[in-house]
């Protein structure tokens, strides 16, 4: 039995310990905000926070989540919208939107550790997140807007 917290709610899991966190979130808990994009950690659509750090949930086995705190987009901000989400709306980042939850979770983790990232740092932090619609320049602008909001 694996004990973990998901969005501050205690959960226990006794299925296949090799099952990636992504499928536990989506198929078992019904938290479908985190997306399946590649299954091998190459696209970032499944990004969640594991003990506050950005993690690819498609590559995180349930066994690795024991005793940890998982935050998904559904739990990113208890009070409504996180500054990153607000900036995403203000800059009108999404097109199809499928990758954007992963982008937002990655950006929120970046701003947790770096209050005012430079372009180079944004590019480095976001390089694992693919957007096929091509919203990158807005993502960069939104991260800067969120950084100002959070300053």
């Amino acid at each position, binding site marked *: 039995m694996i004990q973990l917290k998901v969005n501050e709610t205690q959960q226990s899991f006794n299925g296949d310990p090799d099952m990636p966190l992504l499928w536990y979130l*989506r198929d078992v808990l019904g938290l479908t905000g985190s997306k*399946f994009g590649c299954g091998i950690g190459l696209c970032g659509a499944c990004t969640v926070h594991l003990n506050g750090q950005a993690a690819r949930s498609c590559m995180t086995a349930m066994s690795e989540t024991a005793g940890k705190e998982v935050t998904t987009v*559904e739990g990113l901000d208890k009070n409504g919208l996180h500054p990153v989400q607000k900036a995403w709306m203000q800059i009108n980042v999404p097109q*199809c*939107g499928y990758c954007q939850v992963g982008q937002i979770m990655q950006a929120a983790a970046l701003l947790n550790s770096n209050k005012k990232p430079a372009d180079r740092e944004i590019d480095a932090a976001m390089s694992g997140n693919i957007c096929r619609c*091509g*919203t990158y*320049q807005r993502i960069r602008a939104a991260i800067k807007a969120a950084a100002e909001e959070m300053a």
Partner: protein
Amino acid sequence: MSVIENVSRRGFLKGGIMAAGALVLGVHDYSWPLSGDNPPQGTNADRATLHPGIFLGINPDGIVWIVAHRSEMGTTSRTTLPLVVADELDADWKRVKIEQAIGDARYGDQNTDGSHSIRSFYNVMREAGATARFMLIQAAAQQWGVPATECETNLHAVVHKSTNRRAGYGELADASSKLPVPPKTALKFKPKSAWRYIGKGEVSYDLEAVVRGKAIYGMDARVDGMVYASVERPPVLGGKMKTYDDKEALKVAGVRQTFLIDPFQPPPAFQPLGGIAVIADNTWAAFQGRKKLNVSWDNGPNEAYNSDAYQNELRETSHQPSKVVRNIGDADAVFSKGGKAYEADYYVPLLAHASMEPLVALADFKDGIATVFAPTQNPQAVQDIVSKELGIAKENVICHVTLLGGGFGRKSKPDYVAEAAVLSKKVGRPVKVVWTREDDIKFDYYNAVAAMYMKAVLDGKGKPAAWLQRSVFPPISSTFDVNAVYGDAGHLQQGWTDIPYDIPNLRIENGPAKAHVRIGWLRSVANIYHAFAVQCFTDELAHAAGRDQVDYLLDLIGEPRTLDFKGVDYPNYGAALDAYPWETGRLRRVTEMVAEKAGWGKQKHSKGTGVGIAAHRSFLTYVATVVEVEVSDQGEVRIPRVETVLDAGLVVNPEATRAQFEGAAVFGASIVRSGEITATNGAINQSNFQDYPVARIKEAPYQTNVTIVDSDAPPAGIGEPGVPPFVAAFCNAIFAATGKRVRDLPITKLGLS
């Protein structure tokens, strides 16, 4: 704002996998099939108090329901068409609710493809709004005993200024519903000066739901009692299963059973590819079970397909005289005079769509009715193929359209939905088929691999005296007709038969090529390889003639005129030529404007930097693009800046339009940098983003500036026209920066690093 949300998450948090009970997908603004309804009359718009037509309804609470009948994959069709209704209705956008239509022929064309949602439905949407506004005004005038001509509307209300009376749309809904629906000829449209939303635009109706992670894509669709499926398909197109062993697969925890899916009968069209499906309690178990299958295949004749050899075949064909699809003057007579001829071979490989949401569909076949939830660009095509596969009437296929996590043309081909429907019938439960990324890359309908041969002789001023262009590619029609080998007019029109150059001797040809994979349309389609060849060859000739690229391009486009397509099979993207003539003056204007925006000729370019230009009309929109590149000593290519100017006629949603052209530059960057699908012995070599990379943040243009020409011409395409000129301009910029010509895409073959 969220109209589609999962209302049952708490239930899942409490329960295990799949508790029994009611339908749990909370798509509460969707209609549900009611038995005996034919066609389904289930939208909120249909049920509203005032519902003068299929696209909208108004209730006494003042809520206006607008039906989005086209799919949302990121272009904002789902927002922008309702915005046109709302404008002509003079409605308050905050009091509009959008509901997504199921697949239903009563809405007309629903295939969200070909960049024509606005073009084809702009007038329909205006009429829908104007009809309701007409009735609301009539009702108010009757209540007040004043002539309707004295009444006007002002944001969700009818007003009579001289008596200072005002009635909200909600108050008038009941009275106006008792009035006759006016004929179209009675409608009065708002003047442009009174437009609230058209030309100003709005953000996506789903924006907040998307950033909250509450938007429901096909991948997120759930119904109670559903099981998951992953399908092992024949690796070579047309292959058939020889033997299979599922013993180990069935031992995987969570795996329930396996089912065979029949191979298709050629042509493939939208049929399932066949194979063996693993049915499981969750996606992971289905994937794991599938890995334990042991299957052997009879690959069939396409096993002989190898991309390297095929490329040589295409090239050889492109060097032979072929079918002439357009001719002006006598190019051969000029060539035979023996002046210096410039020749170039261009090549673009197969390209995959790689939408961020892999293909997925959920189907529930019960009591002779198939209910499906799918991220589809074409719900009526879903009805067609599912009805065929299950042997039921088209009306008994209820196709709910979720949001699409990208589409780019792939999701208008519903083979994946047919798989889900076939499996639901076999399993006797709702089945969700989830494609892996590997499936998505390996079983695509690829954009055609294409070889283009170009030849020109220049006159004394450096302008082409004769020009020959010959393209060879396996046509899309081969997916529907196994014997098709030549490009059809619908694809030859895409930047090939409509080359806009003023050249006295011009011959355009197309050669035959047999397909060995499914060929389909991908964002911009044949324009990608045609514009690449024409616009890069133009750049080569400008260089040969010692001319400035912009001057040369303008010189070739020639004086402003309307192209004459007499005797040419030129469909003009399905639009009438008198409404949408091919006007070279508009291409000139965007070219001149983009050169000015980019400061063309004013910048000094140091070693390793350069700019390139290209201009192209596709989907009735005129676009010119300048790309700036920096190439490091290590061969790394950066794109600091892109300038794009477009003339798409009337633009309803400028903000969404800018976003589409920003995205088109990134899509084009992926094609140029790394877009390449190849086959060995008939099977696709690539599988995921490690071997089919798409542009990441550093590889995308740093800044794309989009300028929209103010135009009163009728609306044209937005989603696709940005890609072709970007691809060519990027390649021309690489030449300017490095002196290396890009003739074979992608540039991994160029040896920059």
